[in-house]
């Protein structure tokens, strides 16, 4: 895919997403290089490193091109055989290919026809896993910076904005505001200084789309930002990224330096009158800083607290200047729209939601990882076709979409289409794209409590409904999970929730009760069970559990010693028993047992 296309016989792509890295991609690379050298193939095979391919469950992953043979669950042995049989003798090693189907790379239209990819369509992630993210040459080979060149040479800023509006692209950071309209509002402002910001704060727990997009293809995001700068008349771009993403930061720094060196950033870009540069700012660990006004306060060096809007950032943003702020994934769509046209883009998706959306699929699902699907795909297709369903023969219970601002949808909503309106109507929220699957081992009251604990913790404390309200709701939920809830508590939760939604200043508070309200709506009976029967059907809520010791007990005595109330009895090497009356359910024995002989139910 790079310079010198003729010299190489094979191109290998090694996924270095964090999951694959942890599963030892690094040592794989060493083995690969050693084996290639042994068979004198080092200069015939080029190794590319790609960002996360999204197939974390099957990692480490190696793709051999041409032919697009995808190998998964790599071991040393597999690597040795692949080099010998495939790269040396040109015979793919079927044993290690994931799915026996071959993967035909049809560029970003459709990634391939392995089940995992078949229902996917990659636009924002089109280059992730295909090019080396640290090589600007690789990016240039896949039409990189062509959109920028087109914009600068043949389009006026207003034509760019018109194209964005026509595409129907909406913000991928959560709320789904029309991107072209936002650009237009910012462009209309008269000011000598304007800013363009890329929001890479990605604070939702369980979401890693933006990180993977940047790690896998930083130049796409940068190109999008430059085009945005041209369209609205800004000279300064800022990428605000979480400090927790060191690799993404490194890749961005390199990409920016490479773009500068190539004359794609800085003074007189591509010899035109347009000058623009990008600076990176790091977050400092506050979820609320993902909210646009809080984010700008943070860049200014203040506490990251939101302020009421209007004025919107387009009128008065960073340092009081007109500011255009978009999410990473939104930016990544821009070059494609410019190159392939708004008309093409607008054919994808549903009536109100165009294009694709990236989701981080995790939790109780077979194929965890990163996926990109056309808008309009159903949740069922994502969970069962792409995700491969729920593992261990368990039953699907719910899917949580939209992170702390989102909600839990039960089975009867599986056919809901992914688009902004349908999700909101169902009681969830597009959010930035976290999607967590739950089975019967998840307690919905506990999950609601988890999310509320998160928002309560992250509430910046500025406005009272959010600061105090979430605290009170959390107290009530805690009480219910501890077995001392009362029937009125449900009513209280609903009343408080409605109030916090209405009276809070920013999106954090306005959406904080969603987790509780959506579970109350769809799983009310679980709340009632907790309150009336002191029963947690998932076996999660500690206070409602009873512990028992099974035959797997070796009589080692570890649990007996760990029990703070001496509720466990038994002599060495004989089956121990728990005195249910004395047990305080502290979980110590469960944690201590090395033989998994203690069960809770």
């Amino acid at each position, binding site marked *: 895919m790079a310079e010198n296309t003729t010299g190489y016989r094979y191109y290998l792509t090694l996924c270095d997403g964090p999951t694959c890295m942890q599963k030892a991609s690094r040592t794989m690379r060493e083995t690969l290089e050693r084996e290639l050298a042994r068979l004198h193939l080092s200069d015939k095979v080029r190794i590319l490193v790609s960002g996360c391919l999204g197939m974390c469950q099957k990692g480490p992953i190696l793709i051999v091109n041409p032919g697009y043979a995808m190998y998964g669950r790599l071991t040393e042995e597999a690597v040795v055989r692949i080099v010998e049989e495939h790269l040396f003798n040109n015979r793919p090693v079927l044993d290690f290919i994931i799915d026996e189907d071959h993967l035909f790379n049809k560029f970003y239209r459709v990634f391939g026809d392995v089940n995992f990819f078949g229902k996917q369509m990659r636009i924002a992630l089109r280059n992730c896993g295909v090019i080396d993210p640290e090589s600007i040459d690789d990016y240039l080979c896949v039409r990189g910076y062509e959109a920028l060149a087109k914009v600068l040479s043949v389009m006026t800023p207003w034509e760019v904005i018109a194209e964005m509006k026509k595409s129907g692209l909406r913000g991928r950071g959560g709320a789904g505001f029309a991107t072209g309209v936002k650009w237009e509002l910012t462009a209309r402002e008269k000011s000598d200084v304007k800013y363009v910001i890329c929001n890479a704060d990605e604070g939702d727990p369980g979401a890693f789309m933006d990180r993977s997009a940047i790690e896998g293809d930083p130049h796409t995001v940068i190109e999008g930002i430059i085009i945005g700068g041209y369209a609205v008349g800004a000279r300064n771009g800022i990428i605000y990224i979480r400090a*927790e993403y060191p690799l993404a930061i490194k890749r961005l720094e390199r990409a920016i330096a490479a773009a500068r060196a190539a004359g794609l950033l800085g003074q007189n870009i591509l010899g035109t009158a347009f000058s623009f540069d990008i600076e990176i*700012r790091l977050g400092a660990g*506050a979820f609320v800083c993902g909210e646009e006004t809080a984010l700008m306060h943070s860049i200014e060096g203040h506490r990251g607290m939101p302020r009421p809007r209007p004025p919107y950032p387009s009128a008065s943003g960073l340092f009081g200047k007109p500011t255009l702020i978009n999410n990473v994934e939104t930016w990544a769509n821009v070059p494609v729209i410019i190159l392939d046209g708004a008309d093409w883009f607008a054919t994808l998706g549903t009536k109100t939601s165009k294009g694709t959306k990236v989701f981080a699929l*995790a939790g109780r699902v077979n194929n965890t990882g990163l996926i990109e699907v056309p808008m309009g795909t159903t949740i069922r297709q994502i969970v069962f076709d792409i995700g491969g369903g729920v593992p261990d023969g368990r039953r699907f219970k719910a899917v949580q979409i939209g992170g702390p601002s989102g909600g839990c949808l039960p089975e009867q909503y599986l056919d809901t289409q992914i688009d902004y309106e349908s999700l909101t109507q169902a009681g969830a929220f597009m959010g930035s794209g976290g999607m967590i699957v739950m089975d019967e081992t998840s307690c919905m009251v506990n999950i609601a409590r*988890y999310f509320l604990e998160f928002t309560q913790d992250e509430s*910046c404390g500025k406005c009272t409904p959010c600061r105090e309200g979430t605290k009170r709701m959390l107290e009530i939920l805690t009480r219910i999970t501890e077995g001392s809830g009362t029937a009125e508590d449900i009513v209280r939760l609903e009343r408080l929730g409605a109030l916090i939604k209405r009276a809070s200043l920013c999106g954090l508070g306005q959406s904080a009760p969603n987790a509780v309200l959506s579970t109350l709506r769809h799983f009310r009976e679980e709340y009632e069970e907790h309150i009336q029967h002191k029963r947690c059907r998932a076996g999660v809520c500690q206070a409602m559990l009873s512990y028992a010791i099974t035959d797997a007990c070796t009589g080692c005595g570890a649990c007996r010693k760990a029990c703070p109330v001496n509720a466990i009895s038994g002599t060495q090497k004989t089956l121990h028993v728990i005195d249910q009356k004395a047990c305080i359910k502290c*979980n110590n024995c*469960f944690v201590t047992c090395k033989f998994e002989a203690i069960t809770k139910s």
Partner: protein
Amino acid sequence: MSDVKTCACCGEVSEEQLLLQLDDVLAQNRSKEGALIPVLQIAQTMFGYLPKAALKKIALTLGKPYSEVAGVVGFYSFFSTMPRGKHLVRVCLGTACYVRGGKQVLESFRKHLGIDVGQTTEDRMFSLEVARCFGACGLAPAVMIDDDIHQRVKAARVGEIIDQYRKEKKPAKVKTQKKGGK
């Protein structure tokens, strides 16, 4: 930090020396708009935490009241005004890890280390923190100790993990935290 003088006996850089270096950092950044947070991030990387003397110096040089600087430091969870332990244990409680039992893992770390979240053990070996998602959701529950990610951690095996780090006897150094700073 190659030109940093280290103490010959323990490899530790004295705080006075670091304060002098902070002057350089401030000189480079003071004219930048919104310099406070980047400066704090660099300072934390240098010291391992944010000592009062450093905060005072930063406030003075950037012409901000100390209260404002302290307010910013208190707001962001990334900043710490307490020295941290040699090893930083961060238990992920992102949604995927939570659903897969991250909380039991945290509980187990608490018990084994005898400290609460946000605290450091008396021997300054371990600090315990909660994290929200390293993006290792496919391998939940995950725990990050210094720069290593431990995956599919079982609560019952936490003791063994801690012992691994206890046994390693690296010379104590001012901890340079890689995350965030450059």
